[in-house]
């Protein structure tokens, strides 16, 4: 029973992380209908910027075992801001000129950007080729224990931050004028523009929001796994990105709530598989779930099937 609850909690923590990244994939797909392969590298950049900020500021070395609370918040916002600008730049410089090009070209460009970010990140002037250890910004303690289930501060922070961000996004997409514009653009590009919506601005904004979410996820990821800050070109980043993309597809790509659901589902699936079956096979559970979902419900769990017109 304890194991079940503990796994459930761990799965929720990992899943909310995945959901944050999945949101970026799903929003871009919803509007531009292409898989933004560079998204995992924005996530990677977010994690590394968080490291650089935290390491240069040197809060962890202040002597006390718990750095001040603003340290974490400052790092989070710094990394979100950086990646928001990065996402804006990527869209402006690489994707916008290809607005009318075949989708495959955009996809290859995305792969190119992904390669570019990875390898420029490996430069010694930037992040270097060595994995690093994230300085500790949160006390590594268990906040409370219920029924032998340990609620660690880090995990609770991950869930809390993810929930707050998702709530903000939810409000943004469904309760603001800008969100309505986003939904309109994802529905029909040209009609939205006829209705007086500035499509380019909406797309830019989507990238900014998606990238900021990815940066937050990157920050939370290195907080949760301080030892897992691999070098920028390591394949763990892309693999993580792929998993989150799978989450978005399972939830129904283009659907914001679907991405959240898919992320949590993937996180739970992975943790339960690792705990009860074999821990080495976690990627297999994720991709098998994907194939099953696609075969049974090709549009994803919350997606609506579209009829192809001639």
């Amino acid at each position, binding site marked *: 029973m304890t194991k079940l609850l503990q796994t459930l909690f761990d799965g929720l923590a990992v899943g909310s992380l995945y959901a944050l990244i999945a949101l970026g994939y799903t929003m871009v797909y919803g509007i531009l209908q292409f898989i933004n392969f560079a998204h995992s590298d924005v996530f990677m950049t977010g994690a590394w910027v968080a490291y650089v900020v935290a390491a240069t500021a040197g809060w962890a070395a202040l002597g006390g075992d718990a750095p001040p609370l603003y340290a974490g918040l400052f790092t989070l916002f710094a990394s979100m801001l950086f990646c928001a600008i990065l996402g804006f730049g990527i869209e402006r410089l690489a994707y916008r000129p290809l607005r009318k090009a075949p989708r495959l070209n955009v996809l290859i460009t995305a792969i*190119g950007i992904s390669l570019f970010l990875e*390898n420029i990140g490996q430069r010694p002037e930037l992040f270097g080729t060595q994995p690093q250890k994230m300085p500790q910004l949160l006390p590594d303690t268990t906040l409370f224990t219920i029924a032998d289930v340990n609620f660690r501060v880090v995990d609770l922070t991950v869930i809390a931050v993810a929930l707050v961000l998702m709530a903000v996004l939810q409000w943004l997409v469904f309760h603001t004028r800008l969100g309505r514009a986003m939904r309109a653009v994802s529905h029909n590009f040209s009609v939205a523009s006829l209705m007086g919506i500035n499509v380019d601005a909406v797309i830019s904004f989507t990238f900014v929001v998606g990238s900021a979410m990815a940066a937050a996820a990157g920050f939370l990821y290195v907080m949760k796994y301080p030892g897992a800050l691999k070098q920028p070109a390591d394949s763990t980043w892309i693999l993580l990105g792929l998993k989150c993309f*799978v989450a978005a597809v399972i939830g129904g790509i283009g659907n914001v709530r679907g991405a959240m659901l898919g992320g949590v589902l993937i996180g739970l699936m992975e943790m339960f598989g690792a705990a009860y079956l074999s821990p080495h096979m976690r990627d297999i559970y994720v991709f098998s779930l994907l194939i099953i979902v696609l075969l049974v419900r090709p549009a994803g769990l919350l997606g609506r099937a579209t009829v192809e017109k001639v």
Partner: protein
Amino acid sequence: MLGARAAALRPGYGFVLSRAVGPFGAFLALAFVMQLVVVPWAGPFYEKLLMDIGINCLLAVSLNLVNGFTGQFSIGHAGFMAVGGYVAGAVTYYGSFVLWGSPAVHGGFLGGGDLLFLAGCLVGGLFSAGAGYLVGLPSLRLRGDYLAIVTLGFGEILRVLLQQTNDVIFVPAQIEAATPWQMATALGGALGFSGIPFYTTVFWVFVMLGLLLIVAFRLKESSEGRAFLSIRENEIAAEAMGIDTTRYKVRAFVLAAFFAGIAGALFAHETGTTLNPRELGFQKSFDIVIMVVLGGMGSISGALVAAVLLTVLPEFLREFADWRLVIYALSLIIMMRFRPQGLFGIREIWELWRKPPGASPAGRGAS
């Protein structure tokens, strides 16, 4: 009356024979020249480079059958390569033990070892084709990007499974005691399948490439191949014309997977490479997709040129070791910006100066 007129128009046997056998003879001769003249003259570095080029050409041209001809978007091609490589590697490695007691290269040209290697290539290709059938089946329900994701998922599942295999058995006594199942699951795990004898030569690479090129070019001119092309151009229209689109899509997958499997087998038996699940992951698949897109979707000669370029270029960019991949990525982005249809579009290299065909030359992706 009509029959007689048709018979008069039918080409003679001599012509048919020369059309059918001629190209293959030419490739055989080319492969011999490569092996016997070019390789001794150029030295081991260029020998390896030639083999790499040939294998990448095999991969690019075979993927072109799916991505370029049929317009389906597959990003799991390295997975088929892995199936072929591991199956063929297991056949020659454990087969050599069973037959000759050691995994060393056995016999000379077309000797026992070479025959075993060819059998391995064939079996590897067939297994890979089987995998291609399985991956192609979902195309019944899935279109475009979703199919791409399934192929990606297939590649990843395969990679993880291969990483879970046991260490390679290298003690003869243990191999004698091992059951076939134990051998089939002892593929080296995450460390890679080491110890596979080096049977791949420039000759064999170019023979296989010749075979694939003949298949690809003849396919392009046949009604079967035109069915592939029609699916690329417009799937709904093709279906309306009575083409069983699902069946042709699956066929394209099977054919492409077969040759990718052979490429994998050649890769497995190449000097200086280890068959490693990590090497055959999605990054390798992306590399192959990039070759196809760079060459122009549907252009066989384009895929060849792109494969050669993208194999040779990194070798010569080694001087700028640190900036190599940055330059590579940038050139990819710039290419897509300024020449989105790839080098040759859908045309072959010798058709470049002809007027473009009625369709727009832009590459067509998953639609």
